[in-house]
């Protein structure tokens, strides 16, 4: 195994997992909140929020990466603020890669969760309210469990995207081995190199294996959830 992939490539694998994991962890609550707002509330700016959420899908990834760079770079308003106040930086770090992956996957997360929220019968939520559950509790004890299928779908899409994001990542945080060189960036590098195809294929295969494992896990989870709700 050791010579099957180079140490740098193993590093890329580790990094990809970390990036995908954190991208998923962070976009989940935010995606949930945005999906809930879009599904249930009517507020000024709703249409704008909806478009903004979909932007990463519409624009070439390079543009998204460039905009991220403008906003979250060290010189950018948000990145600069975070850097000066918390000492936390996205630029040229794996955190930035996770941010890019999360942003790129955000439309899918939001859509999946939103679809599920829209399918929840408000009558059940009303029933919970008559039993004394306040809005937050209704969400936690009724809505959330019922939208688990959507959350699982969104999570798995985000994780997969986190494993596969390329364009926005390389534009935003460059390709720094051990810092931001995730599997897709490593693969791209190999493909740019004449004769790198075989090694690229190995990396791609590994990436597919990991994603397949994540998928199988999510399917298993989804089946459990379905079985619970179906009452079997």
């Amino acid at each position, binding site marked *: 195994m050791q010579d099957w992939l180079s140490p740098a490539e193993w590093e890329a694998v580790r990094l990809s997992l970390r990036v995908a994991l954190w991208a998923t962890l962070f976009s989940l609550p935010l995606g949930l909140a945005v999906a809930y707002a879009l599904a249930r509330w009517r507020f000024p700016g709703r249409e704008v929020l909806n478009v903004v959420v979909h932007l990463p899908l519409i624009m070439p990834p390079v543009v998204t990466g*460039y905009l991220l*760079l*403008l906003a979250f*770079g*060290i*010189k*950018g308003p948000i990145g600069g603020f975070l850097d000066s106040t918390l000492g936390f930086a996205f*630029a*040229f770090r794996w955190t930035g890669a996770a941010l890019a992956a999360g942003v790129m996957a955000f439309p899918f997360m939001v859509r999946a969760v939103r679809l599920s929220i829209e399918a929840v019968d408000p009558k059940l939520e009303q029933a919970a309210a008559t039993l004394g559950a306040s809005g937050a509790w209704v969400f936690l004890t009724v809505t959330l469990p019922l939208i688990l299928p959507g959350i699982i779908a969104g999570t798995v899409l985000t994780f997969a995207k986190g494993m596969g994001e390329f364009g926005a990542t*390389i*534009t935003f*945080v*460059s*390709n*720094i081995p051990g810092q931001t060189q995730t599997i897709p960036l490593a693969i*791209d*590098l190999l*493909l*740019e*190199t*004449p*004769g790198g195809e075989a090694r690229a294929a190995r990396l791609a295969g590994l990436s597919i294996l990991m994603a397949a494992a994540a998928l199988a896990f999510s399917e298993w989870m989804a089946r459990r959830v379905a079985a619970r709700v179906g009452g079997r």
Partner: protein
Amino acid sequence: PSVARAEVVTVFAAASLTTAMAEIETGFEALTGHDLAVSLAGSSALARQIQQGAPADVFLSANPGWMDTLEIDGLIAQGTRRDLLRNTLVLIAHDAQHPPVEIVPDMDLAAMLGDDRLAMALVEAVPAGIYGKAALESLGQWEATAPRVAQSNNVRGALALVALGEAPYGIVYATDAAVEDAVSVIGTFPAETHPPIVYPMAGIAGHEGAAQSALLDYLQGAEARAAFARQGFAVIAD
């Protein structure tokens, strides 16, 4: 112009030649009556597409490596390959007031960088990155600076990083640095520090004909030379 024999001629050109190719398209069409289609992408993508039978008549690569690959595959029309353009490598800085730096073996690039990043194109894959790495190696700077290098997937990416100030320094082509106001060139890498930066051109096998020859000729002609030169390229004379 023999409009009666007008054809669509397709040229696959490295993305860094975009502006020059726009001028050349107008001029070539006016001169020959042929319709010129220009496909601009990374050299590796273009080379792969040609391997897969893309309808390219002429390939203009930013990288001799990919041209070699095609040549080995027998995809290049006999005797059409030429080195067309030459470029130079420069060290750029975000700071407009930055004093010039002498690019010599005893410079200390790592010290200049400190905790910051040096923006380059992919040092293993993209020509500008490969040349840059070679130059730093021959100057004895690579080992110290390598951990501080941020690699973009093309030169424009590296340029953008410096232009935005995310990275204080970068290594790019002179042609790219020339058109970006937000960066200043603080040094030029001596030609002997890296292999010659050449853009080879060739006709594609199976597409030989009058149209292909016309384009190859035009690309080496005076109008094209002028267009390339306006973008900062050095045109290699035959």
